[in-house]
């Protein structure tokens, strides 16, 4: 996409809008010069005539040509629109920026005043002002200009206040820069774009307001005429010549469209950005030979398997072919087993969780060689078949309990609805079970909690309610996607204990996604380390600190401070950035950040190899971490 073109011109809609505006501008300049005389020439022999070859839209009560009058009226209509808009936008800016310029004591009343004015429709304000100012063109300009100022002031204030809170603006203010200079140099340039867009849309409503006033006979006064006036004149003869009113009406519509389309295109309504470019295009997905499923598994062992995923791939359409945040992940979970998935953000761990929970939405695609939950193949795609199973046997706990519960529904109702659908409970039974489950997750006074809304509960309580929601059925698997990240330390512990308790009481398997190695290692039996959409290491939690072999795993552990960490040394961080899933390297994805990197790593992607400890995908898995190379990287 060429960057030198302004946003407005990148969509056909914007081009149409700008072109229309251009045509109107040319008409406004030229029409009175070219056709001014034809528009005022009276023809007393041809009064109130219908359309003819001579007069395309007929004539008015003095025999003047309506088509040419409409063209000539473009200038007055547009000039008045621009005048009123300029006045209104200027006033609005003044009112909107005043609170930022004035001391707080004076600024607040201005904001309150603008808010009060917003309660009144602008047409009412126009009429009010028209009464005071009298009926004339000038007073109509003033009235409309003043009437459109409050909404514009509100917008300018909201945008301006947002920018004024930014650090660098606050810094400028504190360092004693004059408020006016702060507004002119720092605030206005940052809010100019939305304001210009809004001014364009405002111009369209000013055009209509002016037309409306003239149409009512309290705007432009004869012998001047604008489109509103022409429509008013045409209305009286609508039975003999509808075109007399419709032609100026069409002028209104076209001009309104010109302003609106330009404004909307500039505001990005039509999605000029990459979104429209995103489409499915077959890309070469490099399939690595994923380790074969262990052959030693026996049938009776398989009965115990809750989740069996082989070669899971999640992809999304992107601007240049599809992007795959998850590239061939295999996970097996048995009853009562807790497995943690760790990795940095962008490693694909949350996508893996969502894909397993069947919550990836279009246009995302999930494919897998095997995707069995409780021995049911989830790949069939038929929702009806799997809904009941997933609804009762799979519980999902999300990261942010603040946003994961519906703010407008009571807690009890949110717990009960799933049970009513999948377990066929009556309203009362479901409500009773919801209270019972809230008690099971140790919420005090569960009856009251069930009647409350999410905003009345603390974050920890909401996360418990989320877990309680999962316990409405008899979950075989809990997928918890960063369940404690948004909570503080003590609450974090309580939620982890609750998950642990659930696992013990019901034999539920737990798939725990986290970026926090310490959280995962504290409650999981096994840890899967993900990097760039693949599992790079799979090992028992107990061995995490001692036997991790993948350099990425070691780096993750190294980044977590413990009691032995030297308080005077800077904390270890993993240098470099996670790979961009759009630009995956040929060889090992971690190569660019790896202290052990060799030529082979850059050429060939390592496969996940099983051994005595677990599995690891690294060409240098057997080499000990070389302290000096680690040092060199930092």
């Amino acid at each position: 996409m060429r960057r030198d073109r302004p946003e407005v011109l990148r969509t056909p809609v914007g081009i149409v809008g700008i072109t229309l505006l251009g045509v109107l501008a040319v008409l406004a300049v030229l029409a009175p010069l070219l056709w001014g005389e034809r528009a005022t020439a009276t023809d007393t022999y041809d009064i109130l005539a219908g359309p003819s070859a001579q007069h395309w839209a007929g004539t008015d009560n003095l025999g003047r040509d309506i088509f040419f009058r409409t063209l000539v009226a473009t200038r007055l209509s547009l000039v008045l629109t621009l005048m009123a808009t300029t006045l209104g936008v200027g006033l609005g800016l003044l009112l909107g920026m005043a609170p930022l310029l004035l001391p707080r004591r004076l600024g607040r009343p201005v904001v309150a005043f603008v808010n009060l004015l917003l309660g009144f429709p602008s047409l009412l304000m126009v009429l009010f002002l028209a009464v005071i100012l009298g009926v004339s063109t000038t007073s109509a300009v003033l009235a409309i200009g003043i009437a459109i100022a409050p909404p514009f002031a509100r917008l300018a204030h909201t945008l301006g206040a947002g920018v004024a809170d930014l650090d660098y603006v606050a810094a400028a203010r504190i360092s004693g820069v004059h408020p006016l200079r702060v507004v002119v140099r720092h605030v206005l340039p940052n809010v100019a774009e939305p304001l210009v867009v809004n001014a364009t849309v405002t111009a369209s409503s000013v055009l209509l307001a002016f037309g409306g006033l003239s149409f009512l006979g309290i705007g432009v006064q004869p012998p001047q005429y604008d489109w509103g006036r022409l429509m008013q004149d045409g209305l009286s003869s609508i039975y003999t010549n509808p075109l007399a009113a419709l032609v100026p009406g069409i002028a209104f519509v076209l001009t309104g469209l010109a302003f609106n389309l330009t404004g909307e295109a500039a505001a990005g309504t039509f999605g000029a950005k990459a979104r429209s470019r995103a489409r499915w295009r077959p890309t070469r997905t490099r399939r690595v030979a994923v380790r074969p499923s262990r052959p030693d598994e026996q049938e009776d062992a398989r009965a115990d398997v809750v989740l069996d995923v082989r070669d899971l791939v999640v992809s999304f359409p992107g601007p240049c072919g599809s992007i795959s945040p998850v590239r061939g992940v295999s996970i097996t979970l048995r009853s009562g087993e807790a497995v943690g998935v760790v990795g940095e953000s962008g490693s694909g761990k949350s996508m893996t969780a969502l894909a397993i929970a069947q919550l990836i939405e279009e246009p995302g695609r999930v494919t897998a060689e095997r995707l069995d939950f409780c021995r049911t193949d989830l790949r069939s795609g038929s929702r009806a078949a799997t809904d009941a199973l997933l609804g009762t046997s799979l519980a999902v706990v999300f990261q942010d309990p603040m946003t994961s519960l519906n703010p407008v529904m009571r807690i009890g109702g949110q717990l009960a609805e799933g049970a009513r659908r999948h377990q066929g409970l009556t309203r009362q039974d479901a409500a009773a079970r919801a209270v019972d489950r809230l008690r099971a997750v140790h919420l005090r006074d569960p009856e009251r909690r069930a009647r409350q809304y999410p905003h009345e509960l603390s974050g920890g309580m909401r996360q418990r309610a989320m877990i309680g929601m999962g316990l409405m059925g008899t979950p075989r698997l809990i997928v918890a996607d960063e369940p404690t990240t948004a909570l503080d330390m003590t609450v974090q512990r309580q939620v982890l204990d609750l998950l642990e308790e659930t696992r013990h009481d019901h034999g539920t398997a737990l798939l725990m996604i986290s970026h926090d190695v310490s959280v995962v290692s504290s409650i999981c039996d096994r840890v899967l380390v993900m990097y760039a959409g693949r599992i790079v290491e799979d090992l028992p939690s107990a061995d995490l600190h001692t036997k991790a072999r993948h350099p990425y795993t070691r780096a993750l552990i190294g980044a977590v401070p413990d009691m032995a960490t030297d308080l005077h040394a800077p904390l270890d961080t993993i240098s470099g950035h996670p790979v961009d899933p759009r630009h995956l390297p040929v060889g090992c994805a971690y190569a660019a950040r790896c202290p052990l990197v060799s030529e082979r790593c850059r050429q060939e992607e390592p496969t996940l190899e099983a051994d005595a400890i677990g599995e690891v995908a690294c060409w240098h898995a057997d080499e000990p971490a070389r302290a000096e190379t680690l040092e060199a990287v930092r």
Partner: protein
Amino acid sequence: MLVEESARGTRGHWGRFAARRARRLLVSLWILVTASFLMIQLVPGDPVRAALGTSAPADLVASRRSQLGLDEPLLNQYLGYLQNLLTGDLGESILTQLPVAETIGQRLLATLSLALPAFVLTFAIAVPVGVVMAVATRRGRRRRTELTFVGTSIVLGSIPEFVVCVALVAVFAVNLGIFPAAGRDGIESYVLPVLALSVGPAAVMARIVRVEMLAVLDADYIRTARAKRLSSLRVNLRHALPNALTATLTLSGIMLATMVAGTVLVEAVFAWPGLGGTIVSSIQSRDYPLVQSAVLTYGAIALTVNTLADVAIAAIDPRSTIGDS
């Protein structure tokens, strides 16, 4: 903070919300009343002379002036105005000498009989269309449908009411002769004005509903609802729609108020015997007591509607009772 709030319970929020909202309504009403009082004072020159014309005898003007109380000190006039308002006395028309309250009462009914059906129709069109479009076009699906919808809505929203009126009259009254072109006579005379009032707002509102709905459909709690494997109907209507409607309702207050004001233009086209026609003709004839009361009535309707919209939002979304605006 959250724990504190939950301890205080919901009732406290409602009490404070009602007090805050009532205070705002009262301040707004006071400003409206004062502004409408000052309107006559601000008219340049002598309003009675302006209304009666230059040829009116001086003693008639003087008697009307004293009748209107314009000779008294400003404060006395103001207090008298407030007192009269409270007793429902809006004064007499300068021109016809009919009681203003009576005229306004009759005309207001005619205006509301247009505005309310138009408001209902707007919602009846906008909400289902907006929701269906949001669900159908979310996440970049059906790009063509989306563009058609947005384009149509912008075009319809760009057409001013009075142009819609004229177009409707030209097609349905003049060409087809199905509906009457003007007047208030029987149910069919309502069709065109109500339609004219609701087309534009419905188009704009449908787009707002769609945008709000799209934002809500991407919210975390919708993912939670899907994780419960509820039916799409329940996810969209029970979980998403009420959340999408809160923002829509905020706008609907302003929209209904604008619609009541928009009747001014529609009434002019359809020769509807409503408040809009009254206000325009009284501005032109400088019948200030009538203008004053009409402005007051319009303003009071707008304020009431905005307050009702806030209460409706609070009923749907209990969070909105918290906050300081």
